[in-house]
């Protein structure tokens, strides 16, 4: 699993943005994690909590937003939420809910995006 390296990349990204904005502390971090990434949000959150120690993020609240799978079907005219058969991270089987085909373009669901941070400044 690569939650640890992703957690490190997230922390580096946040610290970079915080320093550019002259933050004295980061109070909140919002991350979007797509349902099609091979990342377990709970594990990610746990590791983030561990590695932020002694950084500007030490006391930040970490919010992880699941991003559902949205598709553009190539077999019919459907655009919208995919049918993922109730499966979640790791096992998503992506189908068009209208025509049941798998020939779809994935629009969302593959992200690991540091969306916003809330910082304190002097």
């Amino acid at each position, binding site marked *: 699993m690569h939650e640890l*390296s992703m957690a490190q990349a997230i922390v580096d990204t946040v610290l970079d943005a915080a320093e550019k904005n002259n933050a004295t502390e980061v109070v909140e971090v919002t991350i979007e994690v797509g349902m099609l990434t091979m990342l377990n949000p709970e594990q990610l959150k746990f590791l983030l909590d561990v590695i932020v120690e002694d950084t500007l993020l030490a006391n930040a609240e970490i919010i992880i937003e699941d991003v559902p799978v949205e598709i553009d079907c190539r077999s019919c005219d459907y655009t919208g939420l995919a049918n993922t058969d109730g499966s979640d991270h790791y096992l998503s089987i992506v189908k068009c809910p209208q025509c049941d085909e*798998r*020939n779809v373009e994935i629009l969302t669901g593959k*992200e690991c*995006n*540091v969306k*916003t941070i809330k*910082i304190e*400044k002097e």
Partner: protein
Amino acid sequence: MHKVAEVEVQHDIMVANKKLARKNQRILDKDRVFSVDVVGAIGSGKTSLIEAIIDAVDYKIGVIAGDVISKYDAGRFENHNVPVVGLNTGKECHLDAHLVEHALHDMPLEDIDVLFIENVGNLICPVDFDLGSHMRMVVISVTEGDDTVEKHPLIFQDADLVVINKVDLAEAVGADSDKMVRDVKELNSEVQVIKTSLKTGTGFDDVIKAIDGFITDN
């Protein structure tokens, strides 16, 4: 006075890797190198298959051997007298575009036609990380069990070629290799699936033909 400010960051770590992957592809294209990302389960036969290809074809091959400890596979490739760069991933479970870019610097690209990049044995993690290669070949074997495809659907959805290896052992382990082929086809109707045994040679010519086809189309 302290003030709290909200900062838009919008930095997607997956997208950052994708950008590096495209850069790798540009580096490869500049020297007209066709590259194949080889992913698959641990011990499925990735190294054996690349070794057999090296011995069977005329084009000049280079190999990037990614592994938790790269010296084992890298040493095997070196015995075939091709340029090899080993990539130690340490505790990581996959290669990423950044690691591959480093390896490309050490690879004599002007002297090779086809670059194989053997990924870490893992059917889960490599899905998230594009390396910038022109095609992805997934190698599994019957000994992982004939439910392997069902259990790891995403890696097959993005594959260009799927090899189901060790069919000589199918009976011994009670695996139905035809079921594995059907499972792949259901996930990805366009992908070519080839059953092989590197021990007996079954199916190996079809793998060479398939890769030749991709090189010609590129």
